[in-house]
Each structure stands twice: as structure tokens, then as C-alpha cells.
């Protein structure tokens, strides 16, 4: 089934998995039935044999490029060299989706390798919108912007995160990658209602959904959820995914796993579970490509 609500008619909904280097050879050898694959763009920016192997995979699967290093929230602007590397990769791999994060990771030229939080202010909105416009102009296509997992909130924020995202969609024409695990993590850590957050997102702009596992840690007797992509998708995340499907339609959905990477069949099992849920909600074929 193709969702009419979000205008995704060119992209049949299907379930994919995050492709990590240790699974690359097995994917090439066994070609499991998966709708699509997503890789972190930065892992292939050096070129070399890894990129050559990815091009082999690309012949059999639709590919999504997920960037983690563009730092769209940096007040000092985005690194033109990094944007150039991303463009080279986009031109070479022709992905059906290209996504990045609502966060920052570069300050004073140092890359801090984490998706750091922004204050949601008019100033930040202007900065992210300008950086987004620059990136989308260079790439010649809209980016999908992912909602971050949150651990802190700035006192001077004046805009709610879903409204901030909606305004970026309005200003830049970007679309959204709704990470339902991040919503569950942030809602717990920052004390807001996950369902209300989801409902406040501009549904028509959501073009991809992420699912992943998180960890729970204790700090001073208080539970803090960490978005570590290190386990199976948790029950509250599946529940929110069901709601997201009802809300956004059958948009391409991805199961991510990074830490404690399991054997490939475990990841595929999680994807099948998402597929079953998508079929329940959509009543149509959200299955394999």
C-alpha cells in the first residue's frame, strides 16, 4: 500500500535495516529479502574497498544515506568540505533517502562525535534553516531531518521541539525522519508525553521512521534512558510505532542496531516484526521489495 497522506507515492513503503560493516559480506552472499538498507554516510567517505562493496549491495537494494556529521545546528555554519564529501557519495550511490539530525556536533572546528542538543529559540531556528538550505542546495534534494534523543533542556528554549521541526519543514522544504525510539527516550528523560509529541509532528512531512533499542541506567536513584542502539526494540517503542503508522501512513521504516551488534538474523527478525505491524495497521503490503 502506498500512503497518500504524506505524498510518498514514489516510494513504496517497506521495512529496512541499518547496514553495518560486519554484516556487509553476509548481505552480499545471502541477499536477504529486505525492503531497503541504510548506512551512515561518514563510514564511506574515505572511498576504498568499503565503498566498492557498498556499490555491490546497491545493485540489489534501495539505499538510504544517513549522515551523522553535518552538524546542521552549528552556529559557525556547516563545513563545506564535509558537505562536498556527502555530495560525492550521494552522486555515486543515488540513495532514495538522505537524512541528517536536528543537532550540532562541531564547535571551533572540533568535531565532538555526538548529536548535541540545541536551545529551541528563534536564533537557532534561523541558523538551522540557513544551514539546511545550504545543504539542500548543494545536494539538489530535500533532506530528512531526525528528531534527536534528549538528555537535557535549555532554560531559554521558547519553542516546543515538534513545532521547531514543523517550522523548519515550512521554511526549508525539508522532510522529517521520525525516530520513535528517540521520542520514548526523550519523553522519559525530559518528562513529556510521547504520544502528544508524535501527534504534534507535521504528519505529511514524515518520510521515514527509525526504530532501535535503548538502555536504562540509574543516576541518583532516577532512571535515565540512553539511546544506545544496543538491544531489541523496547515494548513502549513498538507501541508508539503502531501509533506512528496510523498517523503517518506506511512510510519506510528502519531497524537500527549499533552497539553489541547481533547476528544478522536477529536484526532481520526485528524487521519482520515491524513488517507485521505495518501490515496490521495499513492492511496492505508493506513488505519486502
Amino acid at each position: 500500500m502506498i500512503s497518500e497522506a504524506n505524498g510518498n507515492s514514489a516510494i513504496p513503503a517497506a521495512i529496512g535495516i541499518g547496514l553495518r560493516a560486519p554484516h556487509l559480506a553476509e548481505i552480499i552472499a545471502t541477499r536477504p529479502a529486505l525492503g531497503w538498507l541504510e548506512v551512515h554516510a561518514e563510514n564511506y567517505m574515505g572511498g576504498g574497498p568499503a565503498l566498492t562493496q557498498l556499490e555491490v549491495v546497491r545493485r540489489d537494494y534501495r539505499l538510504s544515506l544517513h549522515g551523522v556529521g553535518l552538524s546542521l545546528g552549528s552556529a559557525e555554519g556547516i563545513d563545506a568540505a564535509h558537505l562536498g564529501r556527502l555530495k560525492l557519495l550521494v552522486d555515486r550511490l543515488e540513495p532514495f533517502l538522505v537524512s541528517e539530525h536536528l543537532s550540532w556536533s562541531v564547535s571551533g572546528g572540533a568535531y565532538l562525535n555526538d548529536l548535541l542538543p540545541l536551545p529551541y529559540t528563534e536564533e537557532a531556528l534561523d541558523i538551522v534553516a540557513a544551514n539546511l538550505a545550504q545543504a539542500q542546495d548543494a545536494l539538489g534534494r530535500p533532506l530528512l531531518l531526525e528528531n534527536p534523543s534528549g538528555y537535557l533542556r535549555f532554560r531559554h528554549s521558547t519553542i516546543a521541539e515538534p513545532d521547531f521541526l514543523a517550522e523548519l519543514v515550512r521554511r526549508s522544504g525539508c522532510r522529517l525522519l521520525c525516530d520513535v525510539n528517540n521520542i520514548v527516550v526523550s519523553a522519559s528523560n525530559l518528562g513529556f508525553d510521547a504520544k502528544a509529541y508524535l501527534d504534534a509532528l507535521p504528519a505529511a512531512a514524515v518520510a521515514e521512521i527509525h526504530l532501535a533499542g535503548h538502555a536504562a541506567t540509574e543516576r541518583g536513584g532516577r532512571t535515565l534512558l540512553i539511546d544506545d542502539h544496543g538491544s531489541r526494540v523496547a515494548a513502549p517503542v513498538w507501541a508508539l510505532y503502531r501509533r506512528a503508522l496510523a498517523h503517518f501512513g506506511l512510510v519506510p521504516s528502519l531497524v537500527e542496531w549499533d552497539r553489541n551488534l547481533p547476528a544478522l538474523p536477529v536484526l532481520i527478525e526485528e524487521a519482520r516484526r515491524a513488517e507485521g505491524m505495518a501490515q496490521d495497521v495499513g492492511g496492505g503490503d508493506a513488505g519486502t521489495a
Partner: protein
Amino acid sequence: MPALRELQEDFRRALLEGAADAVAALIETGDLSAEERLDVHRNNLFASLTAALRDTFPAVCRLVDERFFAYAAHEFIRLRPPARAVLADYGADFPAFLADFPPCRELAWLADVARLEWLMAHAARAAEAEPLGAAALAGVAPEDTPRLGLWLHPALGYLASPFPVDRIWRANRPEGDAAAVDLDAGGVRLELGRRGGEVVMRPLGQASFAFRQALAQGAALEAAAARALIVEPAFDLARALGDLFRDGAVVAAEVLFPAMEAMP
């Protein structure tokens, strides 16, 4: 309320240097303190970059043990955070950092093991390039030969060390031979490259190491040959060139400074 640029600079300092006061004042606390919340990001930063360094320098990590490696990595990350968002490129300065790191001063060979691992990581992921056949030199005029520049395959790297770093490295692989290495066994001159997708390491003689390393550094043929002749007066240039092409080491050739037109 600080401008975003200032906030990000303060945040960077809070993560890298621990100077969190300016940022902490901006953070809502609730039932977790600002420091506890910032710690999540601090841990993400140091743990992920330490893991990236451990991936690139596994033998160094085994040699100094996991805890000391994490300590050295923490200091390195704090002082030299990545300048770009491609983690495979992070750590070029780590060998030099280890050479100057006071707690490692006794381990004179450690920095060279790190240099070796950096070159191996580089060889594994360097760009692909088609080797050139020796026939490509057929059109070069004899008078231009001394000024010929040969571009070597991007995966190739050269390391000379006064220590047997190849043996130290072999003894510290996960599947290691774990044999004791005699540190006084003498130095090595190594060439790192890639064959069939696998990184290969091999020792070179003094003259061919000098010749190939000079070419890799951009020297023209005559200058590279001169360096080899200094260490070995019997150095055979024609043979060395033949070996170089046979190894598939050359990917481009160009006369660097063509002979000037005769002045009128």
C-alpha cells in the same frame, strides 16, 4: 541568554575540559542535575572516540592494556579532538602524541607500533587505483627521465623503525603468536600495501626502501635514485624500476619539470 555560537563554545569546553559552569547554568535540572545530564554527552564523546582509536590501534591497546589505553586516549581526545566528521581519519597524530606522552616514555617502541597500525588502517581503506604498466614509460624522452615523477598506489606506506615493530605487532594480534620479542633484534624498514583487499606488510632492503619512500614523498626519479645510492652504491635503478612496476606500485607517471625550450 548567550548567542548560540557562544553556547556551543561553552558546551564544547564543558565536554572536553570539564569547565561546565557556564553551560550548567543554562540547563533545566529537575530530578537530575545539569552535571548528570551533561555527563551523558561527555560519555558519548569520549567512549565513541576511544572506541574509534581502539579500532585503529588494537596492538597498541593490547601492549599497554585497556585501562591505560583509555587514559591515553582520553588525554589525546581532550587535546586533539577530531577536525572532521570522518572517524576513520581520526588518529593520525596519535603516534606522535604517544611519543611525547610522559607516562609512555619507557616504551620507546610504542609510537612506532602506532605508526605501523596507522599505515595499516590507511592501507585498508585507501582509494582504489589501477596500476600502470612499465610500457607507460616508453614515450618518455631520455633527457626527461631524471625528472620523471611516479605516483605510487594510495594504499602504499613506508615505515622505518629502530625496533622490530613487525614482530611486536604480530605478537599482539588477537590470534597472536604471543612469542616473546627481542627488542634488540634490530630495526626494520617496512612497506605496507593492499593486495586482493588484504593489507600486506613486507620488509624492504635499505636501498629499495630509500628509493620507494622518496618516490612516495614526491621526489623525481633521479632524486629518489640518489637517496638509494647514498645507502647502497651498487643500487641498480633499472632493476628497482622493474620491481616497482611488477609490484603494481605505480599508478601514474609524469615528467615533473619538462626540459625548457631552448632560448632564442
